[in-house]
C-alpha cells in the first residue's frame, strides 16, 4: 500500500515510531499526485521542493522526540483561498493570477507550527463561489469515483485530493456547504466548525458573516485532530471566539447512549434522491439501535434558506470583492482613465459566476432595494436561527442528508445558476445560523457514488458532532472504501 493512503492518526503513529519518515511519506504523496492528478486535476499549484524541505525538518523534530504534535511531518493539501506566504495563491481567479502572499493565514501558521508539510494549493470555484469546482478560472476538477462527475464545491480540489490519497488530509472553507457537500460527493469526512471557532484571518473573504475554515479528512478521528490544531482565538480576527479549545479527539468515546437526535421533516422532501434518503434513514436507525434517542423535529423556515443565503452572501461578496481594483495587487488592465481601468480590470479578471454574484449583491444593497432584499433577508435569517435554537432545546444534534443527490455530471447544472444554488439546500441554513456541522460517508448509490450524512450540532459543540460521527463510523465500513482511479 502507498503510505499516502494512510489516515492522519495512523501515519502519525508510524512517524512517531520512526517506522516511516516524513520524507518517505511526502514522496509517496507526490508519487500518488503524479500518477493520478492528470485525471483528477485537484491541484492548481504543487510545492514539491518546499514540501520536501519541510519534511526534512519534520524528520529532525521527530528524531529529537519531545513535543511531536499529531500533524508533525504529515502532508496536507490547502485550498487555494488560504494565504500562504511565498506560495502563489490564486483563489482560482484570473484577477489574482500570480499573487504571492506576503503573510500566512492564521490556520496556515498553526499547521506550519505543528510541523505539517504543505503539498500544494487545491482547486476551487473562483472565490469559493460554486458547488461543483466548475467555476475555477483554470480547469474543472474530476470526482475520483467517476471522472465524468463533479467533486462538489467549492472545496472540490481538497475533497478530491483526500479521496484520491494525494495527501493525508486537507483544509477547506465553507460559506454555504463548501466543505460538507464536496466531502459527501467524494466520500470523505468534512467539518464546518462553529462560526468563530477557527480564525478567518488570511482567508480570501467571500461572505464574512458565514465563511469558516475546516478540515477534510479520511476519517472522523483525523477531523478531530485537525480541528484541535487550527481552532482557537486570534486577535487578528475580531469575530474569532475567545474560548478554550477542547481536545476533540478525547470526545470520541464510541458511546451514543441517550443522545437525543432530531430529524427535521423539512429535509426529506421532493427532490431528494430515493437512494440518498434510504442511506440517511438507515444511518439514523443504526444510531438509534446503538442507544441514541431519535425524534422527528421541524425547522419550519428551511424552504426560505436558499433565498436568504443568496441575498446575504452576494451582498457581502459584492462589498468584499470591491478591493480587486487593479491598484495594489492583482490584474490591472490598461484603461484611458481611472474609472475605465477599474472596469476593464474587473471585466477581464472575474469569471461569469463571480460577476453574477457581484451584480446580485450590488443590486440587493443599492438605494431603494436595501430594505426589500438585504434587510428582509436578515430578518428571515433570524427566523432560521430561531428554528435551530428551538430544536436544540430538545436535541443534542440534528441529522440530515448533506446533499439531495450524489455527485452530478460535469456540465449538468452549469447553465442554470438557480438549479446549482438549490443543490446547497441542506447545508446553507447551518452557515446562516453559524452552527457546526460535519458530513461523513453513509453509503453508495447504484452508480457507486458516495452519499453523505450531515450531523449538525449546537454552537461550539463540535465534540458531540464528532462523537456521534465517530460512533457511526466505528459501526460501518463506508469510510474504508477507496475509489479506483
Amino acid at each position, binding site marked *: 500500500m502507498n503510505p499516502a493512503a494512510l489516515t492522519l492518526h495512523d501515519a502519525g503513529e508510524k512517524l512517531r515510531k520512526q517506522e516511516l519518515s516524513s520524507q518517505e511519506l511526502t514522496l509517496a504523496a507526490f508519487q500518488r499526485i503524479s500518477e493520478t492528478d492528470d485525471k483528477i486535476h485537484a491541484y492548481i499549484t504543487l510545492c514539491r521542493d518546499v514540501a520536501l524541505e519541510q519534511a526534512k525538518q519534520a524528520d529532525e523534530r521527530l528524531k529529537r522526540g519531545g513535543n511531536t504534535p499529531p500533524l508533525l511531518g504529515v502532508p496536507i493539501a490547502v485550498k487555494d483561498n488560504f494565504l500562504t506566504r511565498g506560495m502563489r495563491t490564486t483563489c482560482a481567479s484570473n484577477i489574482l493570477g500570480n499573487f504571492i502572499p506576503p503573510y500566512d493565514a492564521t490556520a496556515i501558521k498553526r499547521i506550519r507550527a505543528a510541523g505539517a508539510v504543505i503539498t500544494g494549493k487545491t482547486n476551487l470555484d473562483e472565490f469559493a463561489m460554486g458547488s461543483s469546482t466548475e467555476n475555477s478560472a483554470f480547469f474543472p476538477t474530476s470526482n475520483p469515483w467517476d471522472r465524468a462527475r463533479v467533486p462538489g464545491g467549492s472545496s472540490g480540489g481538497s475533497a478530491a485530493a483526500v479521496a484520491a490519497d494525494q495527501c493525508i488530509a486537507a483544509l477547506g472553507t465553507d460559506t454555504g456547504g463548501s466543505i460538507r457537500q464536496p466531502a459527501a460527493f467524494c466520500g470523505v469526512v468534512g467539518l464546518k466548525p462553529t462560526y468563530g471557532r477557527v480564525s478567518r484571518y488570511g482567508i480570501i473573504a467571500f461572505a464574512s458573516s458565514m465563511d469558516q475554515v475546516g478540515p477534510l479528512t479520511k476519517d472522523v478521528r483525523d477531523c478531530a485532530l485537525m480541528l484541535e490544531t487550527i481552532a482557537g482565538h486570534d486577535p487578528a480576527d*475580531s469575530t474569532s471566539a475567545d474560548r478554550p479549545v477542547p481536545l476533540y479527539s478525547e470526545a470520541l468515546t464510541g458511546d451514543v447512549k441517550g443522545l437525543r437526535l432530531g430529524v427535521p421533516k423539512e429535509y426529506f422532501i421532493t427532490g431528494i434522491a430515493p437512494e440518498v434518503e434510504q442511506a440517511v434513514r438507515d444511518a439514523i436507525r443504526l444510531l438509534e439501535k446503538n442507544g441514541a434517542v431519535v425524534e422527528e423535529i421541524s425547522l419550519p423556515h428551511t424552504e426560505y434558506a436558499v433565498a436568504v443565503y443568496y441575498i446575504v452572501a452576494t451582498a457581502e461578496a459584492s462589498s468584499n470583492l470591491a478591493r480587486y481594483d487593479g491598484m495594489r*495587487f492583482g490584474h490591472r488592465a490598461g484603461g484611458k482613465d481611472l474609472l475605465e481601468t477599474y472596469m476593464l480590470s474587473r471585466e477581464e479578471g472575474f469569471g461569469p459566476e463571480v460577476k453574477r454574484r457581484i451584480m*446580485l449583491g450590488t443590486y440587493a444593497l443599492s438605494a431603494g432595494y436595501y430594505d426589500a432584499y438585504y434587510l428582509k433577508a436578515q430578518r428571515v*435569517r433570524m427566523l432560521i436561527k430561531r428554528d435551530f435554537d428551538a430544536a436544540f432545546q430538545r436535541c443534542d444534534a440534528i441529522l440530515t442528508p448533506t446533499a439531495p443527490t450524489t455527485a452530478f455530471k460535469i456540465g449538468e447544472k452549469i447553465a442554470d445558476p438557480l438549479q446549482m444554488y438549490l443543490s446547497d439546500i441542506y447545508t446553507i441554513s447551518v452557515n446562516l445560523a453559524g452552527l457546526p456541522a460535519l458530513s461523513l460517508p453513509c453509503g453508495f448509490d447504484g452508480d457507486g457514488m458516495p452519499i453523505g450524512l450531515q450531523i449538525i450540532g449546537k454552537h461550539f459543540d463540535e465534540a458531540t458532532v464528532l462523537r456521534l460521527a465517530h460512533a457511526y463510523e466505528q459501526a460501518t465500513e463506508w469510510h474504508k472504501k477507496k475509489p479506483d482511479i
Partner: protein
Amino acid sequence: MKLTREEVRQVATLARLRLTPDEEERLTGQLENILQYMEKLDQLDISGVKPFTHAVDVVNAFREDKVTNHPNAEALLANAPDKNHTFFRVPKIIE
C-alpha cells in the same frame, strides 16, 4: 420582478464592471429569474422580527491601540501591478 437592461447596466456601473452586450443580456434574464425566486420571502410575516447580526452573542473586540507595521514592505509591494520605489503607481486621477 421585471428587470430592464438599463437597470442591469446601472448596477454594473455601481459594481465597477464593464459588461459586453452579450453578458448584459444573459445577466438580465438570469438575475430576473433569481430575483423572482427571492420573492418567496414575501410570503412571510416578518414585522417585529429583529434583523440577524451575529450567530453567537459577541461584544466589541478591543485591542491595545498600538502601532504595528508589517515587517516586510518589499513583499507587500511585490504584487503591485505598477510601483515606484516604495509607492504604488496608479493612473492619473486629476486632469
